[in-house]
């Protein structure tokens, strides 16, 4: 059978390899973004993460933001803000 079979796939299934972000040598004095994805009680856990990062690792500043809901991605402005303002980001938590 000589008919060409057309391709139903409409997204890039081969993702070009992205380089890993540069590792931080230390967390001391850094700014860490905390992105709450919106599941119940996530804030309780993330508050504790902040405490530990501050007391044990010397993180200087936190930028706390949230997604509109677990079902939707973070707004573009929020994502941009976190990338620009932070040295590292923690995102969580699962339900």
């Amino acid at each position, binding site marked *: 059978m000589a*008919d060409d*079979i057309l*391709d*139903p796939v409409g*997204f890039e*299934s081969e993702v070009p390899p992205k380089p890993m972000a540069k590792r931080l040598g230390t967390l001391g004095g850094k700014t860490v973004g905390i992105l709450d994805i919106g599941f119940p009680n996530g804030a309780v856990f993330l508050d504790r993460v902040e405490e530990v990062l501050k007391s044990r690792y010397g993180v200087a500043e936190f930028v706390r933001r949230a997604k509109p*809901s677990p079902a939707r991605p973070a707004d573009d402005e929020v994502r941009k803000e976190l990338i620009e303002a932070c040295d590292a980001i923690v995102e969580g938590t699962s339900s």
Partner: protein
Amino acid sequence: MATATTGIAQDDPIEMLYQRGVTDGLPAVPPTRERVDRMLGSVPWRRHDELIGLLGPQMGRATVEKVAVNAVMAGCKPEYFPVVLAGVEGLCDTAFCAHGLSITLMSGAPLAIINGPVRNRIGLNSGHNALGHGFRANATIGRALRLVTMNIGGARPHGVTKATLGHPGQYSFLVAENEEVSPWEPLHVERGFRKDDSVITLFGGTGFFQVVDFGSNSAERLVSTIGGTMGGGINNYREYPLMSDTVLVLSPEHARTIARDGWSKRDVRNYLYETVVRQQPPESILGPPRGRAAKWTSADGAARKFRSPDTIIVVVAGGTAGRLSAVIPGWVSEELAGSAPVSKLIRLE
């Protein structure tokens, strides 16, 4: 730009499609250039490279031609294609949140509700077995939407998609309203369309609960039985109020019993809203209502199941024999930045 060919050996195209991972587990019709062109021929007013939208989770490009490839694979006839296109418009509508429905742990699938003249034009079944198998239009239009979700949206099980149990409706989940037998105005007219418009409404549906009631012969008794089912274990037994919307599919016999007492669809919704209420006992293993539930619980501890009558969608479908209906609760609703039902006009010429 022409759709790329797969460049894979053609000696067994059905096996080849399986190898490519582009089927739902069932054999797919090989989308040859000739079959895809015939599908596209049913919508001469659309450009083949027209972008309907980007579909999450992988933000694939749903062009008219890509959708046609998937519609061929599903087994659609060309005359079904306008319905599929309108359905994909709905999937790409961010209000519907197809992205969230595709990556949820929960069991869910888009339920497509079809209204208007297109149903009879293309042989959609709205009578006996309305939510079941056996009819090409019902089976393949629903299937086309699933293949689009997989192959354009990129939602593949064990890939980006990791639903715990998934949903049998992921093969096809579609119901055509039985407007001819219904005593009431059809869903699309309720939602602002003209009666002679053809419309597809997408609803993020989860479980399917049968309501059997051969005994009630008044609207109030029958709708109370239905309310009893809804008030019980659907979705999350603790959940008062329900954070999702609900579709109620009434069989023609049930609809007739209700309408005979002069009730409309709105009366059904209002009655369910008013009467499906749980009284929170003062000492309860569930504890006091917190967070969202607290907002809807009155001072005396009473909580309604439904946030408003508008969170219930009522359609009439099924055969004229049988006193059974079905409750299809929804996934996470717009109330929690989840999914809102969306309706799209189906253009037939």
